[in-house]
């Protein structure tokens, strides 16, 4: 147990000392939150073009609309971009080095996953604090257990997708391209920064099948209204879709995973 704790500590220290990952996991999403929260709050009326009836049910602030999206996209990139250090460790022989010790390397991998979940918690707390301070918005308290459940589900799905990318990528360059591309697709097509309603129908259909939207679609009403009404997809479809992504990513990464 003590050795697991030391692994946790060292993985956490490595993660927060790595400026690139700290910036993209923790700082960049919050800057985007401030930026979009500010411009949409200027009367862009983003929430009015969402195509859902959030606004009709009492008119919500744009920043509150953004908050679950910011949380989802942070969690998505935290998971997706973990493919890069995974390959660095694999190519650098670090897993192999651990395999030469009595500690099972799977225990080290588990510690990495725990730390990724810790980072998710930090992302969520940061986003909520910034929402409260900068925009005076607060998630509905009533559905907190739904929030926790959806955040956990989303985090696990995206961590698995990151492992999947690492497993199928022969080299770090490949993983970089896949991760960037997927992340960008999620940024544009998850109904977060860009209103979904203005997109062509076919793009909307694609977006509605991507894991980013599946997560936002349930997390958003959960955080704003405290329930899962007013989703684009049927919420059960959202959750089933996330489950499917998880299973496919898990099976394929288990098949292609290499320690060295």
């Amino acid at each position, binding site marked *: 147990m*003590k*050795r697991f704790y*030391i*692994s946790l500590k*060292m993985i956490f*220290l*490595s993660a927060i*000392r*790595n400026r690139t990952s700290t910036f993209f996991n923790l700082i960049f999403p919050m800057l985007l939150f401030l930026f979009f929260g500010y411009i949409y709050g200027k009367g862009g009326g983003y929430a009015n073009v969402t195509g859902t009836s959030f606004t009709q049910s009492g008119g919500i602030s744009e920043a509150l609309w953004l908050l679950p999206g910011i949380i989802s996209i942070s969690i998505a990139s935290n998971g997706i971009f973990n493919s890069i250090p995974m390959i*660095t*460790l694999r*190519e*650098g*022989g*670090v897993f*192999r*080095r*651990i*395999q*030469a*010790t*009595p*500690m099972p390397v799977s225990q080290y991998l588990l510690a990495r996953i725990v730390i990724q979940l810790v980072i998710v918690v930090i992302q969520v707390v940061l986003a909520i604090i910034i929402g409260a301070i900068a925009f005076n918005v607060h998630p509905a308290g009533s559905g907190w257990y739904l929030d926790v459940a959806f955040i956990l589900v989303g985090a696990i799905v995206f961590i698995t997708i990151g492992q999947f990318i690492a497993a199928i990528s022969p080299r770090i360059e490949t993983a970089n391209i896949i991760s960037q591309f997927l992340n960008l697709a999620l940024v544009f097509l998850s109904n977060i920064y860009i209103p979904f309603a203005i997109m062509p129908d076919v793009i909307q259909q694609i977006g509605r099948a991507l894991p980013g939207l599946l997560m936002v679609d349930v997390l958003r009403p959960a955080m704003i209204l405290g329930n899962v009404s007013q989703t684009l997809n049927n919420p059960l479809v959202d959750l089933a879709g996330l489950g499917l992504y998880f299973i496919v990513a898990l099976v394929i990464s288990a098949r292609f995973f290499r320690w060295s």
Partner: protein
Amino acid sequence: MQNNKTVIRIQDLYVSYGEVKAVKGVSFEIYEGECFGLLGPNGAGKTTTLSCLEGLKKPDSGTIMVEGLDAVSDSVKVKQMMGVQLQDTTLFPDLTCTELVELYASFYNVFLSRKQIIAYLEQFDLQEKARSRAKELSGGQRQRLALALAVAHDPRIVVLDEPTTGLDPQARRSIWESIRHMRSEGRTVILTTHYMEEAETLCRRVGIIDHGKILALDTPHALTSALGEASTLSADVELEDEHLEKVKALQGVSSVSYTEGQLEIQTTQSQQTLADLQMIAVSAGRSLRNVNIRQPNLEDVFLSMTGRKIRD
């Protein structure tokens, strides 16, 4: 410190990667407290042999026993007894030396105090780098840290795979010091190298390995003595064919090679041959430069067994 109690026994080891047979019937024993070297060119099977010992690669057949335990079926216990340094391992770049020692010792369920960690770092002359991150270290420092991590849990056996490859001579000597220190603490050290000076300087016994087979195994002295008394006399001198014929006929000379002004003579009577050569050169109006007489070394042993140089 040295006795002949066997610590590691490798028998009839066969290992392949797909179609490629990397190790073809390697057997040797390592005694307690000795430094044992596997010397051979790249691709000879050194690293593969060590990988099996380290539990990283399963042999096709053969056995590896470490202190009476099977390295394959009892791999966790065997790993616990050994400290390893692998070739080209990246260390976690954002962790400090102190943190890395703490982390690697913890992999063995050994938990060091700060004081103990500093003491370890001092042994490897890294105390001033205790708070530096791994990515800030020089190549030599990083390699010393890799050795420190190998012994952080105080193992009786240390396995080092090419510990000095890619280092400059000064850094190499400092690694040699660290390895000598490990031995002085009574640890058994097994290392691989393709530097014959390294094997000669550090190892009590050396196994010469090529194409997956051990060609010879003994003390460096015994290996070189087996080549006979012949020394190599070399000199830069301009000679014609008629002069070379005279040189070949000299007493004690077994072979002569001459390329582009560089003469190399194998002789059992080096002093006499030198005097005779001098006479031949003077009478031909030529002068000898860069004269050198060298006793046989492990490079010559390898050359005589394979017809190739180790680093060809």
